[in-house]
């Protein structure tokens, strides 16, 4: 039984924006949990009132842009932000925008593009990701070497805290070190500190020139080796990505072999020369079908193909292992990895983001993820890297045999969460224990 008072919710957001029939709810929900109700607030004060109500009745809330993860949410409230989807302001002079969290990432990219501006973070999921989700997850992506990770693009926000209180912070200044940096600390907190209700986003001028160089390789190692050649030649493109054969066809249908995608944004005058140099490096490195793409439509197809592959992998975190080593260590990492995975070329999925030294493995059916992650972490650590994120910290502490560091870290994370959300209302599906 749930404590949720449906009629009070309806009084806050209106009858039409409260959905409690299971069949209607289903299209907003992801996962096995059974929340009591889906609610779609239309503004900040509605969000705040819902959270206050949840506090009174001790009900949990999870939030999503278009869909809400239901882990740990049984009997709780699934809050869908899709009605709060406006661009409130696009400020060309200061290169910033105020947006609501439910705005779809892809819609925002469209509007930003039309305005002659650039918002670099890649959508986590191409069709359904929202801007609120973008900062709530707060990832890095394959463009982060050039532009910085997602957090770089948040200058402020309005947030409803787990108590229902409304917090506003930040301003349009691109330099701001006042107070503690709660602005960037909130990025990646996955809704545990509060619910974003408005975001002040930093933008850049649009890149006037865009080019891609692609090529295919029979060997994943040869493909990766070209990245090291490029770095040694002091070339840092916008993206430098490698997809193994299994994923390559999902990015560009018909591709055979390991696919290298190199993206050059900006480089207005220099781009032609750099593209030629990259193409030569790929060809000399054993690449076939090496191609410089300047046509806008074809360029977009390549980038969208990449984003689709990335989104597929993001969609199944329980079936992937992600790790990082420095870019220069990648050849060794891939070679050593094959002792654990077998031939990487035919593995269900391998992505290398060459500039970041990042690898994502899509695991075969039946793989014990945690066991593999522990082995991968040892391998990565021997090359100065680690498995990504919280899991990586746990594995690192285990490898150091340093239980104290892990306890301290987890203790600190939980204390922070507890300080913000003493009753444990928000984001029950987010675990800080790995």
């Amino acid at each position, binding site marked *: 039984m749930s404590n949720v008072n449906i009629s009070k919710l309806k009084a806050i957001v209106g009858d039409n924006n409260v959905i409690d029939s299971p069949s209607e709810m289903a299209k907003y929900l992801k996962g096995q949990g059974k929340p009591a109700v889906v609610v779609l607030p239309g503004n900040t004060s509605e969000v705040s009132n819902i959270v206050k109500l949840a506090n009174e009745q001790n009900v949990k809330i999870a939030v999503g842009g278009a869909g809400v993860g239901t882990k740990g949410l049984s009997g709780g409230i699934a809050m869908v932000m899709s009605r709060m989807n406006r661009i409130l302001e696009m400020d060309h002079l200061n290169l910033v925008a105020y947006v609501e969290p439910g705005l779809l990432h892809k819609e925002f990219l469209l509007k930003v593009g039309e305005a002659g501006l650039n918002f670099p973070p890649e959508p986590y999921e191409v069709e359904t990701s929202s801007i609120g989700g973008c900062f709530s997850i707060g990832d890095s992506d394959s463009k982060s070497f050039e532009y910085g990770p997602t957090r770089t693009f948040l200058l402020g926000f309005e947030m409803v805290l787990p108590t229902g209180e409304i917090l506003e912070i930040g301003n349009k200044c691109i330099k701001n070190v006042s107070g503690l940096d709660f602005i960037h600390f909130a990025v990646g907190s996955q809704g545990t500190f509060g619910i974003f209700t408005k975001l002040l986003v930093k933008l850049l001028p649009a890149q006037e020139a865009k080019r891609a160089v692609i090529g295919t390789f029979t060997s994943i190692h040869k493909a990766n080796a070209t990245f090291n050649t490029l770095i040694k030649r002091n070339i840092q493109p916008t993206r430098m990505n490698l997809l193994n054969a299994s994923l390559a066809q999902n990015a560009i249908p018909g591709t055979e072999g390991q696919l290298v995608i190199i993206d050059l944004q900006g480089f207005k005058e220099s781009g032609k020369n750099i593209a030629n140099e990259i193409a030569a490096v790929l060809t000399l490195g054993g690449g076939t079908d090496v191609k410089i793409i300047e046509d806008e439509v074809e360029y977009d197809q390549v980038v969208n193909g990449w984003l689709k592959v990335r989104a597929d992998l993001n969609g199944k975190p329980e079936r992937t292992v992600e790790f990082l080593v420095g870019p220069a260590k990648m050849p060794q990492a891939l070679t050593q990895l094959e002792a654990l995975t077998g031939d990487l070329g035919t593995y269900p999925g391998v992505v290398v983001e060459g500039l970041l030294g990042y690898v994502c493995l899509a695991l075969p059916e039946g793989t014990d993820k945690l066991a593999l992650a522990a082995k991968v972490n040892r391998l990565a650590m021997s090359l100065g890297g680690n498995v990504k994120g919280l899991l990586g910290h746990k594995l690192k502490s285990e490898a150091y045999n340093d239980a104290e560091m892990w306890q301290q*870290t987890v203790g600190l994370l939980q204390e922070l969460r507890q300080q913000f959300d003493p009753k444990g209302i928000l984001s029950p599906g987010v675990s800080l224990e790995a």
Partner: protein
Amino acid sequence: MLSQTVVNRLKEIVGEKNVVTDKVGLLTYGYDGTLLSGEALGVVSPHTTEEVVEIVKLMNEHNIKLVPRGAGTNESGGTIPTQDSVVISFTKMTKIHEIDTENFVAVVEPGVINFDLQVELEKQNCYFPPDPSSYKASTIGGNVGECSGGPKCFKYGVTRDYILGLEVVLPNGKVIQTGGRNFQSEPAYDLTRIIVGAEGTLGLVTKVFVRIIPLPRAKKTMLAIYDKVEDASQTVADIVAAGIIPTTLELMDNLLINTTEDFSHAGLPRDAGAVLIIEVDGYPEDMDPQVKTISEICNKIAKEFKIAQSAAEVDQIWTSRRCAFGSVARVRPSYGVNDITVPRSNFPKAIQGVLKVAKEYGVTIGVVAHAGDGNLHPLVLFDQRNKEEVETVHAAEKALCMMALDLDGTVSGEHGIGLVKKKYLDSEFTPAAMGAFRKIKRSFDPSNRFNPGKVFEL
């Protein structure tokens, strides 16, 4: 005063020479770049993380507070010992553990001087973009503490954007590592980001993983001279509108032009209202078109525009800017540095605001600014021996901060809050935001032992 037991124990931990308790010694650690000063119970200079841990544990046993300190160049009072506290000086932790240019990371101890790191990096064709004007003296640990900026922020951002990870001694004496050698190693929450800029109130940083990047292949430096400051502001807006992101857009007003000329004889016209130093970097092929666009923009409105043709000319242009702060001492013996920041579009209004404050309070104010960032350094000139004048200056500085907040800005773009700007925080932040800061501080340091009373009161 520290008990002899504590002093002896400190000496055991760090060695006899690395503990200071005499009056004269304490005095030298009692000030920073501001007018403030304080006296610590003692100063201790550890060499290793283990020593830091021992010191923290000892201080906890005796309920003594700790104030971390690098070179003490900060402009906010962040390293001033207040309350009964021991200063922990990181100037003995100066090892560069590793420079790994192929993997774009360097690992350093907090006491490494920014400039010393830059020199080593440059040998390998790399650099660490944050370069506060104090970079010849200030430490990386201090840069992390204050989240320092510098002239290159418009394109490259501030210190937080170049810190990949930290080793941190927490107030309970335990050591954690945040982040790592790459972007994606934070443990769920971005602990690195909250520690950067926290001015040592959350933890003591004992190791820093910094992001380094290759030196740009090419760079072009330009100088534009204007009759009026407003014209320079217009150039900044026009350059941004043209889709160009320069590394640098540095502005100096007439007063600074004259004081720097007295010192450097760089040949700036003394009757000019403002100069703007503009720098772009990138691939050689991309320089000329950008320079062309910028020169068209500048020539429309500037009284004079030139492109540096040689390294010597670049140096000549920068000499004026680099000596700006010191040069005002020729006019008056003391100056107060502010680092108010406003949205770029409000920059002209902020300049007018500074003039208004100068007039209303009858004080002399020169302006150096990172104009692209909307970050102004109004230098308020005075004589600190004149108590009455000092009062007026404080009032004027308050007015400058309030003016920035009225223009939707912030009281600090790159210097931090420390003690000096703490009193304005309630004007800048809502009670909910202040509450969030306190929740964070309580999570790290419930007993308020690290740099107590800085930034805000717990």
